[in-house]
């Protein structure tokens, strides 16, 4: 146990419960103190003259069938905030996995503190002070804040009994919480905290292991705007302490506000680096999307005017916001984008449309007639299909073959006298495989071995084989590589052009704006507004998403 002072405004005292890493820590302490001081005196000079804390050189990583990262290089200097942006599937998560030591790059070097490595192990990553704050928080809701921060490294007392020293735990946690600007105490149960507060706990955890680089993976994607501001303040505070930050976000305006430099990834390659002066929204989008733009423009062109309302919700109340009825109608032949923050009730609405969840009130109508759904089977019987958000858990059965997955919702049609005909299954599957361009050795291939994009195509295929009336897609391109993404946009447009009502739930702003014919935005369980094509803009969607009126 030892004490360390870091200069941050008024000097704060931090107790560090790190045992067994003393020697390495001493050097780091000196380094950190130094950079802290420098930042304090003159941040801009300090940053530019310091040697990089971390640098990547020509990193390449391939997965079967996909090049996830291709000759990627970047460096991170102490006290620098780097915005890392790129489309889903651009290689951000692979990069994070490499930095976290979870995967090994095929080629390339990773230099940490001037020491070059072929690869990082998880221990090396943690040991060199790289900390992650993931989009999905890894907190124990049943424990309090202090216990979460020091989980697995609790200060002990009573010698061999190894009891947790609760009082000390709280005194250790308090200064960390102060550093992240927390307005709650160390003994607050995590279950009572808001999302932003939980994120602060995660950051405090990162600080407690003496992080020198904090990687924030989409930290704001589920935060309301006011809380986001708080988080951005925390990032600035980290920077002022000389801690580097990699800030991954789809919300480009936030990146613009906080980043010193923006690194743009596209198709696993470095698409460009923007210095602070050149960081602006349009530049980032241009670098991010590249050729994607054309595909999207094509998907955005509707071949037919929308028809009558196919599926509609009348004052439907869902479990997300039981006291807020929602009204929404999807028209034949249109792609209706459903935007909104995570947790705004979009997925619950989709689950009601698909009969998985029963509505707490209100009514559904299909083609103007009342519709009662007791189960997903009822929805399927009515031609309402859902491509769910969680592909692996609910979209497909990983252990079944492509053909078996595709025939599953319509098995009686592939059977003679209750006996399944493998031949009929293969015929249907072959046809879909051809039409959708599913890349697999054969239709007997286990779907678990396919890439995300091809798995998603299998999910689509099982519904396309059955003449959909209404197709609901929940985050259809999440975690899918860019080529497959374009194909899925094309498929959605083809469906709409064939007269199917398409409802696309998406948190990917560019996707919503690029593909939809109309955009409905959800805010706290209700539709806060519907935008027509000429009103489309990121700003309008965001304003509606937080419950304000568009301009």
């Amino acid at each position: 146990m030892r004490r360390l002072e870091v200069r941050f405004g008024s000097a704060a005292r931090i107790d560090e419960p790190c045992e067994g890493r003393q020697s390495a820590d001493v050097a780091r302490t000196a380094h950190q103190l130094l950079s802290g001081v420098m930042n304090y005196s003159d941040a801009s000079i300090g940053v530019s003259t310091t040697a990089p804390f971390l640098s990547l050189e020509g990193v390449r990583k391939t997965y079967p069938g996909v090049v996830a990262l291709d000759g990627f290089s970047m460096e991170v200097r102490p006290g620098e905030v780097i915005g890392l942006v790129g489309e889903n599937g651009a290689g951000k998560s692979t990069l994070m996995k490499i930095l976290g030591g979870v995967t090994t790059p095929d080629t390339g070097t990773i230099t940490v503190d001037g020491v070059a490595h072929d690869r990082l192990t998880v221990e090396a990553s943690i040991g060199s002070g790289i900390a992650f704050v993931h989009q999905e928080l890894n907190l124990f809701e049943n424990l309090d804040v202090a216990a979460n921060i020091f989980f697995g490294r609790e200060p002990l007392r009573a010698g061999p009994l190894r009891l947790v020293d609760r009082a000390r735990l709280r005194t250790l946690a308090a200064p960390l919480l102060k550093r992240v600007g927390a307005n709650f105490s160390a003994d607050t149960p995590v279950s009572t905290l808001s999302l932003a507060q939980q994120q602060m706990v995660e950051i405090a955890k990162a600080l407690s292991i003496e992080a020198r680089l904090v990687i924030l993976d989409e930290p704001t994607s589920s935060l309301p705007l006011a809380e986001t501001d708080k988080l951005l303040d925390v990032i600035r505070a980290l920077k002022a302490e000389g801690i580097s930050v990699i800030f991954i976000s789809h919300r480009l305006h936030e990146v613009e506000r906080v980043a010193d430099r923006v690194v743009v990834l596209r198709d696993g390659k470095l698409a460009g680096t923007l210095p602070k002066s050149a960081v602006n929204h349009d530049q980032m989008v241009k670098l991010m999307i590249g050729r994607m733009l054309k595909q999207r423009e094509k998907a955005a062109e509707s071949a037919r005017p929308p028809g009558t309302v196919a599926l509609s919700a009348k004052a439907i109340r869902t479990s997300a916001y039981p006291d807020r009825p929602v009204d929404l109608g999807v028209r034949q032949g249109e792609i209706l984008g459903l935007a909104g923050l995570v947790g705004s009730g979009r997925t619950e609405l989709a689950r009601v449309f698909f009969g998985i969840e029963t509505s707490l009130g209100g009514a559904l109508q299909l083609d103007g007639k009342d519709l009662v759904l007791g189960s997903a089977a009822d929805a399927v019987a009515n031609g309402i299909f859902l491509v769910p958000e969680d592909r692996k858990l609910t979209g497909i059965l990983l252990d079944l073959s492509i053909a078996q997955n595709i025939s599953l919702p319509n098995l009686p049609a592939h059977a003679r006298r209750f006996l399944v005909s493998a031949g009929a299954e293969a015929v249907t599957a072959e046809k879909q495989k051809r039409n959708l361009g599913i890349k697999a050795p054969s239709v007997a291939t286990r779907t678990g071995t396919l890439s995300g994009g091809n798995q998603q195509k299998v999910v689509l295929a099982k519904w396309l084989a059955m003449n959909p009336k209404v197709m609901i897609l929940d985050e259809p391109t999440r975690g899918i590589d860019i080529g497959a993404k374009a194909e899925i946009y094309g498929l959605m447009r083809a469906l709409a052009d064939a007269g199917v009502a398409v409802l696309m739930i998406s948190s990917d702003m560019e996707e919503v704006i690029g593909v939809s014919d109309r955009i409905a935005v959800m805010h706290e369980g209700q539709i806060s507004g519907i935008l027509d094509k000429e009103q489309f803009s990121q700003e309008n969607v965001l304003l509606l998403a937080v419950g304000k009126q568009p301009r």
Partner: protein
Amino acid sequence: MSKKDLGLLILILVVGAVVAIINPRFLLPINLANTANLIGLFGILAIGQAFVIITGGIELSVGSVVALLGVLFVDFIATRDMAWPVALPLILVLGGMIGLAHGWLITRLKLQPFVVTLCGLLIYRGVARFYTADGTAGFAFGQNFPELEFLTAGRSYGVPNSFIALIVIAIVMWVVLHRSVFGRYLYAIGKNEEAAKYSGIRTGRVVMAAYVICGVLTALSAIYFAMYTRSISPASHGQFYELYAIAAAVLGGFSLRGGEGSLIGVILGTVLLQELQNLVNLLGIPSSLNFAVMGGVILIGVLVDQQWGVYRERRLMLEATRKGMAGASAE
């Protein structure tokens, strides 16, 4: 027949050969016929259990149901003078209703299968003992049911009819499990119930049907057991039978997580269990060690199978990586 089943068959033959060499009485027709009879009785039970396990559930009340329905069946035909062609279907319906009740509690009220059937285990045993006032249900001296006895305890060409019944049921259930739409649904639900639901399958009904099948088959085996022992003391009759059934399924390659296993596997599992019982008797191993031998063999069997699975997975991974690398360089 899968590789797994083939491995089990070889194990059965090897153990059989070893036992036969040490004690040639193993191959006497009388011994084989007796063992075949027991295989028939326990096999029917195990097939029922297999249908529940494939959905990821478990049915622990089997032994108690064998006792309760056995007591009822003997009582119906021996003391209440019910014609056996009436009593037999009635017992099957009762078994089906018990299964339906379990399935309903599990799928509609979302109770855990373990809990529901554990309560069943206790309840049916208690009811069976209460019904006979803890007495023994049996036939009066000289009471005969020639046709029923032929069908249950009789032999055709030296083969016990119970074993023939098992073969017939096994063939039918093999088609149901491995070829029918219902069977595919069972596998799909066992693998991933959520995904099956999202594919528009009425998972509740399918799972309930699995428990009904288990109930009916258990009822059938209850009749066979009753006619085999001819007298039933409800306090001990059928005790641990659920574990024999579960053990047979596990030995046969079923995963208790659901979604895995074959009908041939569960039959072979039953055969191996009965062979082990027989081995304990024939090799003069103290019969008190009976359960220990069984437990040991099952543990080893599952361990070997699991390790083999790990090995195969790793090989597949390596292969996939190699292919992926080759594919990447070709691009």
